[in-house]
């Protein structure tokens, strides 16, 4: 049984951060053959995270969440963007995590914000954090601004990222949901994309 832990740092109920986390989870579950999912809502653990910052030891529920992370084969972590970075609560959860717990673990990073202007937070904040923690961050991060919940672009990005995470976590049930490889110029020379397809793509299918 593959173990997936989903950490979500949204503060409102319901939160767009949790909505994005759920979509990423569904995509990953679909790509994996047999998976057990544990959701960790950081809002519920906010007091215990602060207490551990002050006392050095976790309360019972936070300890259970940390044990789930310890046993996980892969993680999906989703934070709202606060003041141009991950939220303080999100960071604090990883600040109190025992050193070495994320070593070599596949992690899919994702973030939500009001506008797309914050989208590089994945590359400038989340990716360095998890590189420092020695996690293996999947190549595709998923950023969702409010407007992204209207279109279909997010779906493609979610399934690509989920496929990448599933590949790193082990068994994959269907090749289709795994990583899509982008075509190179050489591919076009060897086997050009038929113009009918280019026409379809140009007008959005």
């Amino acid at each position, binding site marked *: 049984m593959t173990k997936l832990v989903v950490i979500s740092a949204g503060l409102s109920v319901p939160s767009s951060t949790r909505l994005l986390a759920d979509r990423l989870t569904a995509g990953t579950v679909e790509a994996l053959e047999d998976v057990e999912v544990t959701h960790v809502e950081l809002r519920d653990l906010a007091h215990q995270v*602060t*207490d551990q*910052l*002050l*006392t*050095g*030891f976790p*309360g019972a529920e936070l300890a259970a969440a940390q044990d789930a992370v310890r046993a996980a084969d892969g993680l999906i972590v989703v934070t709202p963007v606060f003041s141009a970075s991950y939220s303080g609560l999100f960071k604090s959860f990883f600040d109190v995590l025992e050193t070495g717990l994320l070593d070599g673990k596949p992690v899919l990073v994702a973030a939500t914000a009001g506008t797309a202007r914050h989208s590089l937070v994945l590359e400038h904040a989340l990716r360095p954090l998890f590189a420092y923690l020695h996690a293996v961050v999947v190549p595709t991060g998923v950023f969702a601004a409010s407007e992204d919940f209207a279109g279909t672009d997010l779906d493609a990005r979610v399934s690509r990222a989920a496929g990448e995470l599933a590949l790193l976590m082990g068994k994959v049930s269907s090749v289709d949901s795994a990583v899509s490889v982008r075509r190179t110029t050489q591919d076009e020379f060897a086997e050009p994309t038929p113009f009918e397809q280019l026409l379809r793509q140009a007008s959005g299918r």
Partner: protein
Amino acid sequence: MQFGIFTVGDVTADPTTGRTPTEHERIKATVAIAKKAEEVGLDVFATGEHHNPPFIASNPTATLAYIGAQTERIILSTATTLITTTDPVLIAEDYAKIQHLTDGRVDLMMGRGNTGPVYPWFGKDIRDGINLAVENYALLRRLWDEDVVNWEGKYRTPLQGYTSTPRPLDGVAPFVWHGSIRSPEIAEQAAYYGDGFFHNHIFWPAGHTKQMVDLYRRRFEHYGHGAYDEAIVGLGGQFFMRKNSQDAVNEFRPYFDNAPVYGHGPSLEDFTEATPLTVGSPQQVLERTLGFREYVGDYQRQLFLLDHAGLPLKTVLEQLDLLGELLPELRKGMAEGRPANVPDAPTHASLVAAAGGAHDSTVYAEADSATGHRAEDAEVTA
């Protein structure tokens, strides 16, 4: 089974009055508390060691010797001695000397310290913490156990033909406890030497203490010092009691809420549930304390932290009176069901007996050419 108190000598404002004691008041209060501890029948007083405000427990040797001169029975110990940043040669000398001055009423607890800058202040690197504890203690042991030491290590200048003086009283070094909250390496170290292992206990949940003590006991047996349940274990503890338990809660809450270590964090209720802190009636303190055995096994030393977080001296002395009244029941409870093979904590007398009796350990050195036995000898050879 020994009962006692330990203190880090924090100079903290009393949150109910806003008044902070002076260093002078705090140092004198520490002595008053130690003398009271002996008066109410406790077995151990321990203090040490921080090298920065707001603490007065810097190198505690002077304080311990001063208390030793004003008491007759109580064992003096440290909580802790910084084996990482203190020169083991000075530790060997200082504590052998206190042994002589107090007729063997001293032991030590080794610790690594928790204030980062202490390492650079003493020319060390905090990343070497464990290695320093390991190498320095190995040297300290040799300085006590061998009359002449040739030694070379990584962290200290080498020693050639060195004799630490005075030699340990009756040829027996002070007993050593190793204290650590969360480093398995220190439990392993205590087990390797067959020394005692002390778990602070008071800041972390019981499950964690249990895990550390279990490791120490397993490794103690592995190294052939005795059975699992014969290892020498000490625990911290923390309480505030009044005859009426609600009075205890009401009186202690402001001190808890503003305490330097856990203040402004979990509630008093959450913290008392998660850790050994007990705030209530003497009966509650008795029951909780007797319950420690359930997860660490029968053990040898129980030290309580009483004077901290700005509690006034008068209150601390009242707590000591209450503890004294509780002592007979604590001793009786701990003796109940205690297997015969579980040893008491080693004392100077028991260590001397185990070594086959006292012997004069003085090293009567030959005169050397530089100083001679007498000034005129040195002059002749110079």
